[in-house]
């Protein structure tokens, strides 16, 4: 036990101290926060009040364009417009809309914001539509009365008879996100284990070590050490994302005068919205399941990755063995979308039972609500599977690490499994 602990410690420390680990740990949350903040920032930025100059030979559209909250239209004479086209810098206008019959052009001395151009486009489209409807003799008021918009409330009747408002959109978001995360983690850390095994083999240290410890101890020590690296990264990502997003929010609030207007009331309104959005979803259960499926799925896959690493002399030779391992993983990644659309279907059920796909697929299904017995069964199958794959991998590993210069084949791997002691 002391020896396996020593191995875990070394595998952990060597990786955590690596520059690439530190960079990844820092960059990950930054990217995440950027993904959340940048769209908000861009949306806010475009909401400045802007003056738009219009010039039209025969006034038609110009009069019908209405000022909005952020856009103010001013009709200017042709001469001024011509002058504006040559020199924009002194004018108070953001852009010049030049209308010649049915063609519209926006001039500006800067890149015109998409929101501005699409707002103008919308108005112009409406004007033209209205004109056409009138020409066809359709009553506008009648048309408005016909147009309808409804909002379906979906409710799930749980086993105890209570109905809970279901949150399809939030469920999809959480399911998608945690499924992808599990997929990424298993892939990243599984191949990390494989590389570690290959490194020990190519540097020829492996025989030195296994004269002190059993091959199984070395393999497990490496797998567990890397698992701890993964957990560390996961926890750090969550903590850092929270810290950075809090800081960014404050900095953001100070910088932008527009968002400063957003009162506490608005903020609490958003929070309330989020909590009602996720209301029907058991977040604690999802978090606990995430840790379970990450660890169990990783343990199952990484032992196979370790076996592959032991069977080859260099990373280039891993291709033929890697494919059958990564195939189910990639398959579960591809299935995320269809499973989200039908989280209770037969496909979803079986994919969340088969251990090779269950870590990803079950995480996708969980936010939609899954029966307890299904979760328990899926977990039991997964545990039994990783015990089995670890046993199998250990058999290949102990022979493989001592084999040099021989290109292993599947037939040979099968033979290795049958070797005694």
């Amino acid at each position, binding site marked *: 036990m002391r*020896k396996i602990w*020593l*191995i875990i410690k*070394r595998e952990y420390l*060597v990786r955590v101290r690596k520059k690439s680990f530190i960079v990844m740990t820092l960059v990950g949350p930054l990217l995440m926060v950027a993904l959340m903040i940048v769209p908000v920032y861009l949306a806010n930025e475009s909401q400045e009040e802007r003056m738009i100059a219009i010039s039209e030979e025969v006034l038609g559209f110009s009069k019908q364009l209405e000022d909005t909250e952020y856009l103010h239209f001013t009709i200017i004479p042709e001469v001024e417009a011509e002058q504006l086209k040559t020199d924009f810098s002194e004018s108070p206008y953001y852009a010049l809309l030049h209308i010649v019959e049915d063609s519209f052009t926006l001039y500006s001395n800067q890149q015109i914001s998409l929101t501005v151009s699409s707002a103008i486009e919308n108005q112009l489209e409406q004007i033209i539509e209205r004109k056409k409807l009138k020409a066809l003799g359709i009553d506008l008021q009648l048309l408005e009365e016909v147009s309808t918009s409804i909002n379906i409330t979906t409710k799930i009747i749980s086993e105890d008879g209570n109905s809970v408002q279901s949150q399809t959109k939030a469920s999809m978001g959480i399911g998608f996100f945690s499924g992808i995360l599990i997929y990424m983690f298993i892939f990243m850390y599984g191949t990390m284990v494989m590389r570690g095994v290959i*490194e*020990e083999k190519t*540097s*020829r*240290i492996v*025989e*030195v*070590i*296994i*004269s*002190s*410890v059993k*091959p199984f101890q070395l393999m497990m020590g490496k797998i567990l050490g890397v698992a701890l690296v993964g957990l560390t990264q996961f926890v750090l990502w969550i903590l850092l994302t929270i810290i950075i997003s809090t800081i960014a929010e404050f900095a953001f609030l100070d910088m932008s005068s527009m968002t400063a207007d957003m009162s506490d009331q608005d903020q609490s309104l958003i929070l309330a919205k989020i909590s009602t959005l996720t209301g029907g979803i058991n977040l604690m259960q999802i978090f606990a399941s995430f840790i379970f499926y990450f660890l169990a799925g990783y343990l199952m896959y990484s032992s196979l990755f370790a076996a592959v690493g032991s069977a080859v002399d260099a990373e280039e030779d891993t291709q033929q063995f890697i494919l059958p391992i990564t195939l189910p993983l990639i398959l579960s990644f591809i299935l995320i979308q269809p499973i989200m659309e039908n989280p209770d279907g037969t496909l979803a059920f079986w994919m969340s039972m088969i251990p090779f796909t269950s870590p990803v697929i079950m995480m996708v299904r969980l936010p939609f609500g899954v029966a307890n017995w299904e979760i328990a069964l899926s977990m039991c199958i997964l545990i039994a599977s990783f015990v089995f794959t670890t046993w199998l991998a250990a058999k290949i590993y*102990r022979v493989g690490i*001592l084999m*040099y210069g021989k290109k292993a084949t599947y037939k040979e791997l099968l*033979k290795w499994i*049958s*070797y*005694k*002691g």
Partner: protein
Amino acid sequence: MKDSIFIAKDIVKQYGNYTALNKVSITVPKGSIYGLLGPNGAGKTTLMRIINQIIAPDSGSLLFDGELLQNHHIADIGYLPEERGLYKKMKVGEQALYLAQLKGMSYAEALVKLKFWFTKLDILDWWNKKVEELSKGMAQKIQFVVSVIHEPKLLIFDEPFSGFDPINAAIIRQEILELSEKGTTIIFSTHRMESVEEICDHIALINKSETILEGPIEEIKKQFTNNSYEVITANKKLCENDYFSIISAKDTTFRILLKEGKTHKEALQSIINEVEIISFKKETPTMEEIFIKAVNNA
């Protein structure tokens, strides 16, 4: 067999249809330097791995210091495998500490012993260097230290001198002899017969998965000595007679073989009257000759 540190009896190891060891037995006396010889692929590495409990034999018994070989004996055995290396990106000191602790030493103990050995071999200033910064010979020195650091009763060296320049090879040879003087038993596997002759006192020769020779080196040499002598004359030619036949002749140096039932005294007397003899010497075979002869006859 109380004075044996290690006894292997009838060891069989098969890989599928391939038999790596077929009823191999060796007895390693305590305090000896035991040469484990044999052509490539004979099964030496498999045997050494079995002694180190890296792999288990299919059948046969293994005794270490009078006990059945068990897991805890790992701490009493040191192994320098032929395929050896270190983590390239790890610092020398940290790595040596790690490997020493894996052998069961405490951190504090390992630190003291390592500093002692590093000072002795004059490599202390490599402590904080990464292995990839060192030359191959330097890394070999560290490898050697790591294999002896836990002061095992039995040391197994597989080609210990490969990768060393002559000066460093001499240093390592000196260290091995010192360890032997202190009472450590050493199993030594090599293809270099001259170093076997230099330092081993016992040998076992394994060929095609079987032991074909085993025992003290002197006895084995005696066994391979036939009645051949080297005779150097002053200038005259030597002729065959009733007592001996000539195997080879070169200038005035002749190799003669005594005929059945004749002694070297009789042969000498038969020549001494006819030619002037400068030297008359019994031929003892070199290890290399024994090796080739034994392997070819087997």
